């Protein structure tokens, strides 16, 4: 299985990658290659040129600044899962990254490639939506930012323009006093991709829930943000009965169904794992 022929060029900075993209419209960025190379091999895509950003160190790594986490787009799943900053500041992102595929995949795949590819069975989108992350992009007209909730627009489709590169993902410090979060996943036994992944974040103030967010991977063609207009748990006790009731009332329309799992089954998984993820997040708060 060989990809069709293409030209190859290596970018040394994010700006150079943008300039190279502008030169030739039939170019695509290559990061870890763990979504792109399989697509090239299957000849589902055949760009004239690959622009390898794999060595652009300025967009790689995790740091903490002004109580936000900044994750470079080229940071690998393994680097995220094993980062002490991510583990302590955004535990469910570390959990989700650590559940991707297998160790070899996590050594190559990057967060930028994962969200740019926007596979509905990916693990990172729901976490980024639930935590309220911001995606930073660089394009021919300079920098721009998009809320994660607006970034994923459809199956394998995002709000990123073709000439743009994702530089960084900004995440509000999530594990502060009172906050708890959890990512739970039912994985496909062969590929490891999410059949259903539930990302939950809960803020408790004494015995009262101050806020809660919940998003799912793998259930609908684009990451499903359960409570974009505010959680029904807010203002209540967020005990098991309240969580069960809130999830039982949740409408999950137009789920995906395929040979691995029917839409009905995915919704049933989402309800079960949504409840468990919320309870785990509450217990960690």
């Amino acid at each position, binding site marked *: *299985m*060989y*990809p*069709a*022929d*293409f*030209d*190859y060029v*290596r970018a040394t900075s994010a700006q150079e990658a943008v300039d190279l993209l502008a030169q030739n419209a039939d170019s695509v960025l*290559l990061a870890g*290659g*763990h979504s792109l*190379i*399989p697509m*090239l*091999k299957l000849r589902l895509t055949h760009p004239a040129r*690959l622009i*390898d950003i*794999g060595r652009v160190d300025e967009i790689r790594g995790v740091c903490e600044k002004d109580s936000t986490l900044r994750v470079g787009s080229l940071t690998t799943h*393994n680097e995220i899962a094993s980062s002490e900053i991510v583990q302590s500041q955004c535990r469910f992102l570390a959990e989700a990254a650590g559940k991707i*595929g*297998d*160790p*070899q*995949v996590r*050594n*190559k795949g990057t967060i930028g490639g994962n969200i740019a590819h926007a596979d509905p069975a990916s693990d990172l989108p729901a976490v980024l939506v639930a935590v309220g992350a911001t995606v930073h992009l660089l394009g021919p007209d300079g920098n721009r930012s998009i809320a994660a909730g607006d970034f994923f627009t459809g199956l394998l489709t995002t709000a990123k323009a073709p000439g743009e590169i994702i530089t960084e993902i900004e995440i509000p410090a999530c594990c502060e006093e009172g906050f708890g979060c959890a990512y739970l996943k039912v994985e496909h036994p*062969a*590929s*490891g991709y999410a059949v259903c992944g539930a990302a939950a974040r809960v803020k408790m103030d004494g015995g009262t829930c101050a806020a809660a967010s919940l998003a799912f991977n793998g259930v609908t063609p684009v990451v499903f943000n359960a409570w974009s207009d505010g959680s029904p748990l807010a203002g209540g006790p967020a005990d098991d009965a309240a969580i069960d009731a809130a999830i039982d009332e949740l409408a999950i329309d137009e789920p995906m169904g395929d040979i691995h799992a029917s839409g009905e089954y995915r919704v049933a998984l989402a309800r079960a794992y949504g409840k468990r993820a919320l309870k785990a997040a509450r217990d960690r708060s």
Partner: protein
Amino acid sequence: MGVRINLEVNGESYEREVEPRQLLVYFLREELGLTGTNVGCETSLCGACTILVDGQAIKACTQLAVQADGSSITTIEGLATNGDYHPLQQAFWDCHGLQCGFCTPGMIMAAADLLQRDSSPSETEVRQALKGNLCRCTGYHNIVRSVMTAAEGGS
């Protein structure tokens, strides 16, 4: 259009011109003649093609040779020193960690990545580290035993 790459494989430097679309595993096997690294699924699922690139286990069927320019690579051929088996190779022999042997180079390279990070892993950690490697013969028990034995007797 060929691209010139420089890389180190098992301690030896190579300079070659490659087609950008050439997969790293075929570069190793066909260009350098290092056929110890196997190709099973070719779709990043079986792990037979696992090698270390700059110390990290990766699947060489899902990396382009051009991406490895400037890298240092270790394949199964690079593990033995002066004719002595690496502790993992010896343990796979001693514990019957292989039957047909097709998965073995990949299993050993994935285990080598684990043991260099954690010299005394638990059985669960060994199984997690080998999650990306399939074996159709052994049923895995002896593979896990081999890795545990290599860790205990370790280098």
